[in-house]
């Protein structure tokens, strides 16, 4: 009978270990597959073509600069919008709002994370883009800015939650010390609590960047998808094309194994590598936070 238990224990232990190890396997598998399918592009496309400014796959022009800069423009704008909104909201919810308001606000902000991105993209197309076109007198509402605005809101639930936890982790003694020296609560928030929470806030920014960089459907639906170089600040209010949207829009129409196919996988490698680095940078903070009990 105890023989049997020992056997059970051994087999179950083995199964559970395999489940645990499989995650590493998946990451490696994904990366290896992207490499295998994407690296041939480096042989098939000349470097100056790759680094060029024109993306016309039909004419074998694979200049990635417009796509890369498009992603960069949308992501940076989204973070610049989300950051003040996210931190102010976190501060308000954590430090200012009365209990009842907190109970309403927190779930409401989290609801946003439960809306599929394609629904937000749809809303962006049908409501936000026409609205921006008319208010800002633009030729089209499908612009980098429209995408960035929605991406900013999509980054908010994570950003608010991480920033709030960071504020929560600031020792009460810091605040008490500041208050005891005659600082107002307002001064305490901005001169003590927020600076002390900066690591957490930095994590929030990193996660937001990763999220915005990788988002596909929203940018595909609302940024207009014109692969042109965003050279001036005015480009913000013109259509752009991001790396993710390019894959989504073109992969369905290419032949497996063609140059275009390899190039799209190569863009996948770039996205994988970029988000990998970003998450690597944010990892220590995420792990620490998880140890304290709670990232969702």
């Amino acid at each position, binding site marked *: 009978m105890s023989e049997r*238990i020992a056997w059970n*224990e051994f087999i*179950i*232990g083995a*199964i*559970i270990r395999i*489940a*645990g190890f499989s*995650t590493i396997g*998946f*990451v490696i598998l*994904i990366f290896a*597959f*992207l490499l295998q*399918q994407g690296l041939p592009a480096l042989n098939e496309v000349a470097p100056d073509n790759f680094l060029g400014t024109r993306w016309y796959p039909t004419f074998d022009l694979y200049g990635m600069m417009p796509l890369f800069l498009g992603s960069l423009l949308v992501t940076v704008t989204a973070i610049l919008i989300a950051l*003040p*909104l996210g931190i*102010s*909201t976190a501060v308000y919810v954590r430090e*200012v709002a009365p209990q009842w308001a907190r109970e309403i606000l927190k*779930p*409401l902000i*989290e*609801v946003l994370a*439960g*809306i*599929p*991105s*394609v*629904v*937000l993209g*749809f*809303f962006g197309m*049908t*409501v936000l883009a026409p609205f921006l076109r008319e208010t800002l007198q633009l030729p089209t509402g499908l612009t980098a800015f429209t995408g960035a605005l929605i991406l900013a*809101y999509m980054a*908010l639930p994570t950003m608010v939650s991480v920033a709030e936890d960071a504020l929560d982790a600031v020792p009460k003694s810091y605040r008490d010390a500041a208050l005891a020296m005659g600082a*107002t609560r*307002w*001064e305490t928030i901005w001169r003590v609590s927020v600076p002390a929470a900066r690591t957490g806030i930095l994590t929030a920014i990193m996660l937001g960047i990763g999220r915005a*960089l*990788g988002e*596909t*459907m929203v940018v*595909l*639906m609302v940024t207009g998808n014109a692969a042109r170089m965003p050279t001036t600040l005015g480009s913000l209010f013109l259509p752009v094309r991001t790396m*993710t949207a390019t*894959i*989504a829009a073109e*992969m*369905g129409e290419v032949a497996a194994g063609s140059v275009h196919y390899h190039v799209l*996988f190569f863009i*996948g490698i770039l996205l*994988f590598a970029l*988000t990998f680095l970003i*998450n690597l940078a944010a*990892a220590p903070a995420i792990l620490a936070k*998880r140890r304290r*009990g709670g990232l*969702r």
Partner: protein
Amino acid sequence: MNRYAQQRLGFIALGAVTLVVVIPILLVIGNIIAQGLGAISWEFLFGMPRAGMRAGGILPAIVGTILLTLGVALFAIPFGVGGAIYLSEYARDTTFTRAIRLAIINLAGIPSIVYGLFGLGLFVLFFGLGVSILAGSLTLAIMTLPVIISASEEALRAVPTEFRTVNASLGGTRWQGIRKIILPQALPGIITGVILGLLRAAGETAPILFTVAAFYLPRLPQSVFDQTMALPYHLYVISTQVPGMPLQIQYGTALVLMTLTLSLNLTATLLRRHFRKRRQW
């Protein structure tokens, strides 16, 4: 200016910014409900699309999404919960364990379109599953894995260590302790995590673009190797690819999809709240 007047102004400004965050959320939800409600009818929910999707219902898309989500559950729950049990109950703090944790964080951060590429390359082409429910479920399952693992591990770790010690002291093996005490106690948290993972899978579009989704397929799928329509992809298609699409059908589809994910979200939140109150420790 008086410092306390400054504080009062500051607080008001913060409240105003919070409203700027919250009001658009309500606007989006309200807009989709208000515009979409009119489209909802028996025929819309349970009928086949007709006239190039410009009329009729969205049943194949609803069924497709449900099937995909079930497929994800089938693959992701055993691996996810198993992985969480490994990390919380078996793994020691070694370089290798840290590598696993890092892998999970990175899986969570990989863009969904990259999962789509991977699914296309591995499942559709390499394994020859073709564009199918199976290929899509597997792709979405790997994407969902980190969500389920993280939430489950957290739930397992929340169970007091002492229970493990007591189990051992009474002659229980590690797995007996997990099965009889730890897992039952962590179950509510695990279920919450699983729901959150599944709702993410149900709402995703990019990973299924090249792995499952049928543009227009007015019949129910016949097997797991069949293509299928799915709600998120359907919404993308009818709002961008089909000229002359009645706006109401688009809104109706958006409403159905949003209702599905938000109700899952609500279930998870309520479950968590309910069990947190009844917890015995």
